[in-house]
């Protein structure tokens, strides 16, 4: 069954079409299991495959516990993966890494975390925090140049260079997230993983940070793996999205396609659950309810079906026919 899944992914029409442009990241049949006390195994990520093209934003959405953060952590190799292959920029990074590949991986892929306060060292000045990447990869860089690079990136994310010698506690939440972003961007990564990077921020500040991320992408051509549970923000920033539930990607496709014609019942429930900003219709609207157990949908039985060339869902043949009727 796994083979059939792999086959569909590899021969997916859009992947073939886009061969003139190689994906920057290609994940195949990724599995991430965690052993928990009592001999049980949690299948946090269970056989997922996706591609990210250079310069595009790929959104990964789902509820908590769906495995979206685990996927992000597996891709940047924070956790040892159980099975599957991850190819990043031509290098296979799923097995044991050699020195060469590690260096390339560490400088070309970076991550922004959810809680800006928890991800910054409170005892380090932010100039040192931002320069972490430089210190690791260019330990002999002279002080002047290091400073210049940090100031340039601070300027880019909308911080003033006069703030370089401050500590994280002296910044507001939005500014701290900009520091996190600056640290991630200083090595000019080809892929940036943003794990719920804006969830902890206020609405007005979220918009600022998202706009900034878009601008930086236009300039540097970095690809983003944008992990979030807020679908409206994901819709705004992503070109393609994948919806995860219980460790499986249940639906993937171009953002507009998925939002305007969701096929999988889970996606439909998820989109319908977002409260709309319209009091007169919202009060009476009843969101769809989806219960994986009650509906009897078993994700492990499903295979990938293409709704359109770019839009895929995880379903059995019978379910597919029923949903697309």
């Amino acid at each position, binding site marked *: 069954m796994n083979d059939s899944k792999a086959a569909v992914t590899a021969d997916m029409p859009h992947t073939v079409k886009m061969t003139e442009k190689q994906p920057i990241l290609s994940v195949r049949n990724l599995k991430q299991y965690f052993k928990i006390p009592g001999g049980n195994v949690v299948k946090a990520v269970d056989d997922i495959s996706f591609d990210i093209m250079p310069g595009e934003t790929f959104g990964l959405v789902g*509820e*908590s516990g769906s495995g979206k953060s685990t996927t992000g952590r597996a891709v940047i190799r924070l956790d040892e993966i159980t099975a599957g292959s991850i190819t990043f920029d031509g290098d296979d990074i799923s097995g044991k890494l050699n020195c060469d590949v590690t260096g390339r991986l560490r400088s070309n892929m970076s991550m922004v975390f959810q809680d800006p306060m928890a991800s910054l060292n409170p005892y380090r000045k932010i100039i040192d925090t931002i320069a972490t990447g430089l210190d690791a990869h260019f330990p002999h860089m002279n002080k002047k140049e290091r400073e210049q690079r940090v100031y340039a990136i601070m300027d880019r994310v909308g911080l003033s260079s006069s703030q370089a010698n401050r500590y994280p506690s002296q910044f*507001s*939440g*939005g*500014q701290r997230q900009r520091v996190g972003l600056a640290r991630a961007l200083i090595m000019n990564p080809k892929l940036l993983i943003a794990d719920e990077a804006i969830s902890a921020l*206020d*609405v*007005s*500040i*979220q*918009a*600022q940070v*998202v*706009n900034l991320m*878009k601008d930086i992408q236009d300039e540097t051509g970095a690809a983003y793996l944008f992990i979030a*549970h807020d*679908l*409206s*923000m994901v*819709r*705004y920033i992503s070109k393609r999205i994948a919806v995860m539930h219980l460790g499986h990607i249940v639906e993937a496709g171009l*953002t*507009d396609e998925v*939002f305007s014609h*969701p096929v999988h019942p889970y996606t*439909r*429930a*998820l*989109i*319908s*659950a*977002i*409260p*709309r*900003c*319209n*009091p*007169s*219709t*919202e*009060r*009476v*609207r*009843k*969101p*769809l*309810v*989806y219960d994986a157990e009650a509906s009897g949908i078993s994700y492990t039985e499903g295979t990938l079906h293409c709704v359109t060339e770019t839009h895929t869902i995880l379903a059995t043949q019978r379910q597919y026919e029923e949903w697309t009727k």
Partner: protein
Amino acid sequence: MDAHNSSTRERILKMRDVRISFNTANGVVHAVRGVNLDVYRGETVAIVGESGSGKSVTVKQVMGIRSHNEVIEGGSAEFIYTDEKGERRIVDLISLSDGEMTKLKGNHIAMVFQDPLTSLDPTMTIERQLAEGITYHQHLVGKALHERCVELLDLVGITDVEARLKSYPHQLSGGMRQRVVIAIALSCNPELLICDEPTTALDVTIQARILELILEIQRKTHVAVIFITHNLGVVAKVADYVNVMYAGKIVEAGTSEDIFFDPRHPYTWGLLSSMPSVLSKTEARLYTIKGNPPNMLNEIVGDAFAPRNPFALEIDFEKEPPCFDVNNHHWAATWLLDGRAPKIEMPEQLRVRIAQLKGSEDIGYE
């Protein structure tokens, strides 16, 4: 909407000019700077604002939850309720002693907090936690008490009640825990329920169900609800009235329709525009409110929003705007509504979006 008919509405909370500050190591923080708030029976009043705007501090006055460095600079919060003997009583919650407050808390006023896991005691079964308030205020024991607990869990839509009553909080899912917290809040049939970001920690699908539950309970029990949130979609779902709060003041208030379809304050414009739309095609760029909220340690001269306001007039930096009435249930504190101000309309992007919203017949995917 018959809610506007004030003669039939029964006011249960009347807050006037509440001012709160905190003594901190860095100086005095003026967290709440003169808030007026009215709550009527059976209605939901939402308070929207960014973190630090003072919305939580305001409603905590109603519950008498105060920290050690908190200073009440003035104001009153009249609460009107019917006591055990069936008499109508009016008390000022701000000047109430702790002992008197304890009689009201849980009994007439109840609160639901953001994180259900931290508001439940991990060492007590659900039944014991549910029973706590009922035993204290209504002196129920034995079978009657147990029946009341079963009834409450039924009310909040929990199935397999007997088993759940014996469980501990860690054995329940996040949505289930929040249902239990709501059941505890409702245990003594309060007149006023305060919900402080009750769904922020939950997933969207769970959030939708908890909001439905709160609406349903309100229909059944006619409890008045104060709903604090920063999510405007949630406001649209539950609120009858909306108060937009910025830097310790309410800057605009009105019915949900007023705020969503006819916003007047530039801050409300900014809030509404910076929410990405779920329905319409993606816009090229999200509108952002420039800058950061003001530091409440400093004294604020004029309109607190002026430095971030692209439509700010000169007077905004000098004199604080009074409240201008738009109609009898909608007002905003901005100089733009003054007769002498230049005529400034809401940003084009927002106007288009509101027009789209009004026109759209979106009722989910049913």
